[in-house]
Every structure is written in structure tokens, then in C-alpha cells.
């Protein structure tokens, strides 16, 4: 009895009638995409369904290039290997920048000696050679106290980890291993807020929501200015190299489906407002217009050429988008 029911179920269920937009990818992009998905479904009164998963930037691209999902969120541009995988499967894509995030270096509010950090100092703390050797603050900078240095950072599956190591050490994923790692940024927040000698890094949103427990460290940029992460400094392009663009990638074939097209259009018109709401730095309005125009004009592919890059400012991103 039960078995033929199930067999009948399988036979009956194959034609998918509901319109579903399938999204997966980076946990950094998730808050924006989730907000867009929530409002979009409300605006459409449930006629179009949107699902959002979190597999990380790399995991998202794997599914995207296997043609399993319509949209993939990415906290870094697509890399060579992923471009090849997509090409092999015949998956073409549009690359749409949706916002900027500022990776924020934080210390305990009681920490009085760190006023600013240079990339060279960060490198001394985080490079693989520091493992087991650079354990005290005065080893990084002699003017700092002789106290233990306790480091907190996202785990190796995170796009934030990829970007930070690329920007600071010079090679993606190249980092010391003896720090407290967690894929859950709240664990890092708790860690630094309870440890006077703690230092950590994660996305800007986690700092803003926990400002009372953490202190953001100004980072010295290539012009020699110490800049605190904020919406303004990211917009001006002075918070470098730790500000980074985040993207959605849309399958060209999926855009043929009206529900996906409507969703992406909604993303490009409401994305700025919603990005600000979830504490990301929105792009200037014309950036979203340009991106949507690229979709309408069929300008496919990436403007990054598959290489890992750091310190791309909003201005530079827009210039490249315009050239596509």
C-alpha cells in the first residue's frame, strides 16, 4: 500500500509547476540576498518563490557551474578554475556587483595601546612564519606591551579569510594556523570582547552590531592615512585594501525565465536600500543601473579576469564595469 503510494507520488511529482528562483553561495552576501528575497516575495504575493542557501562562495560556484542554481552570491570575483568549470558545463553568467563590505579589524575596548595598524604589522601577526613564534604584542611592535597576543579569525572556508590573507600576506589562504578559528562570526565577537589581549577580523556588519563590545582599528592605507572603517570611508575609497566588492552571478540561461529576470531586476532596483539596511555599503545608484543595462544588452562574463585582486575601490570597479 505504502509503496505504490510512493511510486505514484514520484510519478506525479516530476513536473515542477511552481516558479522557483534558486540562490546559493556566500554567507557574506546572504543577508542582502535574503532581504531582497523576503521583500520580493512579499511584493509578488507569493506568486514567485525564492530559496536561498549558504554554501560559501566556493561551494556556491560549484553548484552554479553544474547548472543547479540560478544565482550565486560571491564575496570575491570568480577565479580561473571556476571559470573553466563553468565553461566546460556551458554555463554563461552575468556578474553583478551588489555592495561593498569592509573587513574590520577589531580589538578589545580596553586595549589602549593600539591606535592604528599598518598592513606590515598585520602581516607580522598573520603570516605563516609567525606561527608559534610571534606570540606577544611587543614582538610585532616594540612599543607595545609584553603581553600575550590572542588572535581570532574566520575559518579557511570563508571568503573573508581568503580576501584578508590575500590583502595582508599577499597570497590567498596563506595564514598562520594557531589562532581561534570559527565559521560563526559571533564566536569571534565573543572571543575578542572577553579577551583584553584579543584581536580579530570579520565583516563590517558584525562590528556595527557589537560596537559597544569592540573597538575597530584604523588601518593605514597606501597613502599613509589611518582610516577607520565606515560607510563614508569605503565610499570615498580611502579604506583600502580591506574594503571589497561583493557580487551576485546570474546564469544567462536562467535569465530567460521571467521569474529570474524579475528577481534580478528587483535586486538591482532595491538592492542599495536593502544593503544599507543590513549594514553593507551600497554602490552609487548608477552602478546598479549600469549592471542592469549589461544584463539587458547581453554583456556576459567577468571584469576581473579570474585573478585574485585586492584594494579595488568603488570608483575602479565602476570604471571596469563601464568598459565591459
Amino acid at each position, binding site marked *: 500500500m505504502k509503496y505504490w503510494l510512493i511510486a505514484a507520488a*514520484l510519478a506525479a511529482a516530476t513536473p515542477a509547476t511552481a516558479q522557483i528562483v534558486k540562490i546559493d553561495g556566500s554567507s557574506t552576501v546572504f543577508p542582502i540576498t535574503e532581504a531582497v528575497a523576503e521583500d520580493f516575495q512579499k511584493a509578488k504575493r507569493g506568486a514567485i518563490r525564492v530559496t536561498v542557501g*549558504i554554501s560559501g562562495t566556493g561551494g556556491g560556484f560549484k553548484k552554479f557551474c553544474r547548472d543547479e542554481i540560478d544565482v550565486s552570491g560571491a564575496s570575491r570575483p570568480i577565479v580561473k578554475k571556476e571559470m573553466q568549470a563553468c565553461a566546460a558545463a556551458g554555463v554563461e553568467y552575468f556578474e553583478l556587483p551588489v555592495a561593498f563590505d569592509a573587513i574590520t579589524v577589531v580589538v578589545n575596548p580596553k586595549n589602549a595601546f593600539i591606535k592604528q595598524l599598518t598592513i606590515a604589522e598585520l602581516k607580522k601577526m598573520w603570516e605563516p612564519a609567525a606561527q608559534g613564534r610571534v606570540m606577544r604584542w611587543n614582538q610585532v611592535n616594540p612599543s607595545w606591551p609584553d603581553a600575550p597576543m590572542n588572535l581570532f579569525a574566520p575559518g579557511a572556508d570563508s571568503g573573508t579569510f581568503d580576501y584578508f590573507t590575500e590583502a595582508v600576506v599577499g597570497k590567498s589562504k596563506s595564514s598562520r594556523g594557531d589562532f581561534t578559528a570559527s565559521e560563526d562570526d*559571533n564566536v569571534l565577537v565573543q572571543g575578542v570582547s572577553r579577551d583584553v589581549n584579543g584581536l580579530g577580523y570579520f565583516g563590517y556588519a558584525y562590528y556595527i552590531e557589537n560596537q559597544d563590545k569592540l573597538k575597530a582599528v584604523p588601518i593605514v592605507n597606501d597613502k599613509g592615512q589611518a582610516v577607520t572603517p565606515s560607510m563614508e570611508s569605503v565610499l570615498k575609497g580611502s579604506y583600502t585594501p580591506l574594503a571589497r566588492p561583493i557580487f551576485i552571478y546570474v546564469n544567462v540561461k536562467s535569465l530567460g525565465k521571467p521569474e529570474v529576470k524579475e528577481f534580478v531586476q528587483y535586486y538591482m532596483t532595491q538592492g542599495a536600500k536593502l544593503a544599507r539596511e543590513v549594514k553593507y555599503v551600497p554602490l552609487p545608484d548608477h552602478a546598479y543601473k549600469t549592471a542592469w543595462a549589461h544584463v539587458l544588452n547581453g554583456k556576459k562574463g567577468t571584469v576581473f579576469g579570474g585573478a585574485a585582486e585586492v584594494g579595488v575601490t568603488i570608483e575602479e570597479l565602476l570604471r571596469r564595469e563601464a568598459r565591459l
Partner: protein
Amino acid sequence: MRALIAKHKRRDVLFALLGLLALMIGILTFAALFVDMALRGFGRLDLDFFTSFPSRHAGQAGILSAWVGSTLVMAVTAAFAVPLGVAAGVYLEEYARKNWVTDLIEINITNLAGVPSIVYGLLALGLFVYQFGLGQSILSAGLTLALLILPVVIVATREAIRSIPQIIREGSYALGATRWQTVRYHILPYSSAGILTGIIIGMARAIGETAPIITIGALTFIAFLPPAPLQAEPPYLSFEWLLSPFTVMPIQMFNWTSRPEAAFQANAAAAGFVLVAMTLAMNALAIWLRYRLRRNIKW
């Protein structure tokens, strides 16, 4: 002599205290966690919490898609694990010959019960999701969890059957009953209490599982329900929900704990409270059923 008795009595008291301590460590830890969760989540527990979809606004977010997802996945799990597990258990106890093959099977089933759940997730990802093309659906998740609890159900079934005295079977055969009739009218009814307990313990484990469900691709944000199984127009029954995308309670909870906004922590606590309450309710059901079924057995 008196001294010896006193010494033994002292040891007796000592062990009782030790045992009590051991018991309290477990119970108090659980109670503290549960009370903490209840206190933090209490403000969020209202009807809206159960009838709202997840949202980026902590105050409006609810667990509708999560508890419906969990319930449907559990239904599929039970529909597969119960008949398969009970049939396998009955066969092993009542039909199979005792030789090295059955010994080997027995060892393997016991081992399977200890395999980490993520391994089942990986197996299911390859087999159900891609090979059978079931996709990242309620059906895939239910089948995965069914595999996970199958050993528990089989072992419980065998234990329950073994506790039936041999004279019951001999009595049945003596009256000319076949093996099937003996199983159908005696073995199954008498062992049903123990089998039920095993099923519920397995289900209680399955409802809290996260790793295999994430592996096969449960979603984090989903703001709609699977298609309803009952339709207004013919053929009235629909099984489309089996292939629908879904999320479950533990995933919803995990997503909320990893949010930057502190207000979501209350949501996570409330969802945790509901999940524990669901598990306790299942266990309560098991105890009640066992009590009722035992009462009907008159040997």
C-alpha cells in the same frame, strides 16, 4: 563484626551519593540549558512565531517553514524506516538461520548505529540527490534520516522480540499456526511496545540532526510552504511536496545564532525551546503508547 557491618553500610551510602551525583550532573546540565533557553526565548513564543516565515527583522521572524519542514521530513522518515526496520528485525529473529552470515549482518548493523551521521549525508548526496535524481528535496532528506535510524529500529525490534518467551511461539505452533501466523498474531503484538520505543528514540535522534541535512542541501532561507498534500480538485491527493525544497528546525536555529543582531539570539533560544519540546512530546507519546500496549498483554 559490628565494625565490619558499619564499614559496609558506609560504602553503601557512599555509592548512593556517587550515583546521585552522576545523575545530577546530567540532569542539572540539561535543566540549566533548558531553563536558560526558555527564559531567553520566552518573549518570542507566541502564535505569530509559529505562523510566520523567517525574516531579516528579528521581531517578525518565525519558524513556520522550519517546523513544517521538520514535520514532513519526519513523516517520510517514519514511512520508510518503520516497515523496513521492523521487517528486517523480524526476519533476523524469526526466520533467518543462525550461522556466520547472520552473525556478520548482526555485527554490521550494530556498527552502523555508530557511524557518524555526516557519512550518511555524503552517501545520500551521491545516491539520492544525484544518482536517483531526487534533488534537494524533502524526500531525499527523509530517506537519509530513515537510513540513519534504520539500525536503531532493527536493534530495538530484535530486542523486543527476544523478550517474548519461547513458550508463546511453541504454543502457537502446537495449535497448527504457520510461522507467518505466529509472527502476525503473537510476536508483533507482544513486541510492539518495545518496537515503538525504538522507533521514537530513533525519530528523536533524527529530528535534531543537522549535518546530513545540510550535506544534501537543505536551505537557509525559505519563505513558502511545500504544496499541500490535499487538493481541492481531483485527484485530491498530491505528492508534489515530496520533491519540494525545505528547511528544518536545527538549521533555522543555527542560522539565527550566527546573525550579527543580538535580537536573533532570542529567536534561536525560542526555536531551541520548541525543538526540545517537540522531542519531549515524542518521548511522552512513546511512554504513553508503551503503557497502553503493555496493559493489553495478558500472558
